[in-house]
């Protein structure tokens, strides 16, 4: 699974209740949509890579940085991805809960 498919899978977690989105078969608008989704996927992947790099660099390496620490980096990345999933689940549940109780 590439990073593009990770974010570009269009698995709508929230706010896809508006199913009034008419799907035309205008090829231009299909291409515009595909390009927007592609660019969003790249932006999300970039953001993720930057955040993981900063966090795992900080947690795994220490000045004067004479030694690499690849096992720690690998574990840190795995932990970060798991954290992402935990937080995503909690946040989406909270949003959905708030929207049904009319909090938002």
């Amino acid at each position, binding site marked *: 699974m590439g990073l593009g498919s990770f974010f570009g899978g269009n698995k709508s977690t929230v706010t896809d209740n508006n199913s009034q*989105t*008419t799907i*035309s078969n205008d090829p231009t608008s299909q291409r515009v949509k595909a390009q927007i989704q*592609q660019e969003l996927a790249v932006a999300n992947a970039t953001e*993720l890579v930057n955040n993981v790099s900063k966090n795992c660099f900080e*947690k795994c390496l220490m000045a004067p940085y004479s030694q690499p620490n690849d096992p720690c980096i690998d574990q840190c990345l795995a*932990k970060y991805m798991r954290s*992402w999933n935990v*937080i995503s689940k909690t*946040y989406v549940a909270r949003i959905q809960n708030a929207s049904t109780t009319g909090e938002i």
Partner: protein
Amino acid sequence: MSSISQADLDSMNDSSKKEIANFLDAENSKQRVQMQIHDFTNSCFKNCVSSITSPELSTQEEQCLNSCVNRFLDANIRIVQNLQNVQ
């Protein structure tokens, strides 16, 4: 990536433009949630994950991540309410 020509864009009819506008609205709100998750993961990971000794999250770490999101949102709601009362 193939870019879309201006001529192609100009030739779109009103219903296609409307379709794109709706699509953008939906993608925008999804992306706002996505960015918020980036933000939460970044700051909660810093605060909740103290040592890297395994690729798994410990039970405490997972609880901490959940509470981190929930307490942030509680604080956010409270702050908005307080500010509304000031007015």
